[in-house]
């Protein structure tokens, strides 16, 4: 068991190294003078030469690669040509809001998709199933930014039930510790601030969850249909188990195992798709940062953000692997 976990961790480290290498060669593949890119468009020739020297761009590619990895290990992702801040500290500011948003999106995703998929499987071929599948198709087909705008307009603006932008109302912010508005509020014992932070997250998370929960609900539905037909479910029924026990105890856990892998990957995809709602709800997250970095040709900032998104993707999948070890005894067998 421990050996398996260690092996998974080593594999994760190896994958991160792979992503870092890919990012390095992406920099190399960008046409033009890298020193000019690093120094920014408005740089003077002296500044360009400074950048060339600082980044060791006059060395061979192999040496540059080594230096690049070394800089990465020290958390140095370069300097933004827009904010003039180290990109790592920029990312430390924009990552928490997105993580918070994606975490709540994941919770909503699971809370809606699992019951919906189970319900659909139990009503297989009947009107309840058809209705559930209609919701899945609509959820999967509706554009996220449109849904975000509609929720913002209807629930936020017209009904005034929830805030329409930002992370906290004025005066409810908590001192910065982790950068996560919810966690910081809890750390400061600021209950009103916590509720306020959650209220700010609900609409964006709801909008972002739609396409993801449609996929998860469909996956749950089909694996649940299979699980309910399984011999071990018939055996449980023959032992005298009630329908409720059969659904929750004998079929659902088995149906969740394959879905777990999907959830792990979705976490990474959500990080990428967060931009769509961050823009609508004015959340200063990774998506917004990446978007402005692209439009202002802040190449190192773009690559830094890509690297961090890759890292989150890998860590999410690592977490899923560990949960799977715990849930499915068959995966614990070292092959």
């Amino acid at each position, binding site marked *: 068991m421990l050996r398996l976990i260690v092996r998974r961790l080593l594999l994760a480290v190896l994958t991160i190294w792979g992503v870092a290498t890919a990012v390095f060669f992406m920099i190399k593949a960008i046409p033009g003078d890298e020193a000019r890119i690093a120094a920014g468009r408005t740089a003077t020739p002296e500044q360009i030469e400074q950048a060339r020297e600082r980044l060791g761009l006059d060395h061979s590619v192999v040496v540059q690669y080594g230096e690049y990895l070394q800089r990465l290990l020290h958390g140095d992702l370069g300097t933004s040509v827009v904010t003039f801040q180290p990109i790592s500290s920029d990312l430390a500011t924009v990552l928490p809001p997105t993580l918070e948003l994606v975490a709540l999106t994941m919770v909503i995703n699971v809370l809606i998709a699992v019951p919906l998929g189970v319900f659909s499987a139990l009503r297989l071929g009947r009107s309840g199933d058809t209705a559930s599948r209609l919701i899945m198709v609509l959820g999967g087909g509706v554009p996220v930014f449109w849904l975000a705008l509609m929720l913002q307009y209807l629930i936020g603006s017209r009904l005034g039930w929830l805030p329409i932008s930002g992370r906290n109302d004025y005066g409810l912010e908590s001192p910065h510790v982790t950068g996560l508005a919810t966690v910081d509020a809890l750390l400061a014992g600021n209950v009103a601030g916590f509720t306020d932070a959650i209220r700010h997250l609900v609409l964006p998370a709801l909008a972002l969850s739609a396409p993801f929960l449609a996929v998860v609900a469909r996956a749950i539905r089909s694996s649940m249909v299979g699980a309910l037909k399984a*011999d071990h479910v018939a055996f449980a*029924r*023959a032992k005298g188990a009630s329908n409720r026990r059969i659904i929750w105890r004998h079929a659902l856990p088995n149906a969740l*195992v394959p879905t777990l892998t999907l959830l792990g990957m979705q976490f990474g995809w959500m990080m990428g798709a967060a931009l769509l709602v961050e823009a609508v709800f004015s959340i200063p997250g990774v998506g917004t940062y990446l978007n402005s970095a692209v439009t202002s040709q802040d190449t190192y900032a773009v690559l830094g953000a890509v690297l961090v998104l890759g890292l989150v993707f890998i860590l999410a999948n690592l977490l899923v692997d560990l949960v799977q070890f715990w849930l499915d005894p068959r995966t614990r067998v070292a092959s």
Partner: protein
Amino acid sequence: MTSVLRIHGLTVDVGGLRIVDGLDLDLRKGERVALVGESGSGKSMTARALLRLDPSVSVGGSVLFQGKELIGLPEKEVRKVRGSQIAMVFQDPTTALNPLQRIGEQVAEPLRLRGVGRRSAMKQAAEMLDRLGVPRAAERLGAYPHEFSGGMKQRVMLAAALITRPKVLIADEPTTALDVRVQEQVLTLIEQLAAEEGIAVLLITHDLGIVAGFADRVAVMYAGRKVEENSVDAFFAGPSHPYGKGLLASVPRVDRALTERLDTVPGVPAKPSARPAGCAFHPRCAAAIDRCRTDAPVLLTIGTGQAACHLIEEGALRC
């Protein structure tokens, strides 16, 4: 002897198709009855219908368990019978055990469902597994199915079925997924426990080879109907129905050279969706007469048993 299970005119319909059509069968206390037939003959559906395992399947007729009618009983009442009075084991122990649950939990489940405390249920599970020859049973309660061999898994399933001391055990092809040596062990175990506890066993199988050594009585099903029933001795001495004869002739024998071609029943089994008129077996029957093509034969008493064949009336079949 009194019947524990009396099946009368049992019908099973799946999606508008009649899979089992008017089956009669009696199971007396401690008796071992084999229900045999080819794939698709309705024997497995009969087994599942007795416990009403498939909600989408409509079951008709009458099933009396110790004088109590099970057909038409509300689901909640049927649940009290399942597992505690009538237990069932399935064909493939690999798929019939939940891969995510511990062995002990799965064996003890029928007791836990009936309010037995966890410790007591686990203790009884260990005892039952031990009786069924699972080595170091108490230590292995925490193991998962994938850590067991096929034969051991079948013992685990039997332990879960028998832990409540049921009156009837329905065994649906319990040895089909096992290798021959393990088949023998598992059947011997079922036989022993059934004898000790006075459990009636309904063995569903397509393998006549295991019937001879195990059952007291044989019923043969074809296309959803019982075509023959007799004591094992009488059946193996000479079946009355041409289908029974065909089945018996197609069992490989040690006293014949391997170079000889094995006898087979010609043709393919009748499908429920295209059941031939008259006797469903007539297209494959070498002895079929005109009447067989139009009239469905009824079960007639012949010798110690029964058979449904026009040739009996015609005097063409001997007892």
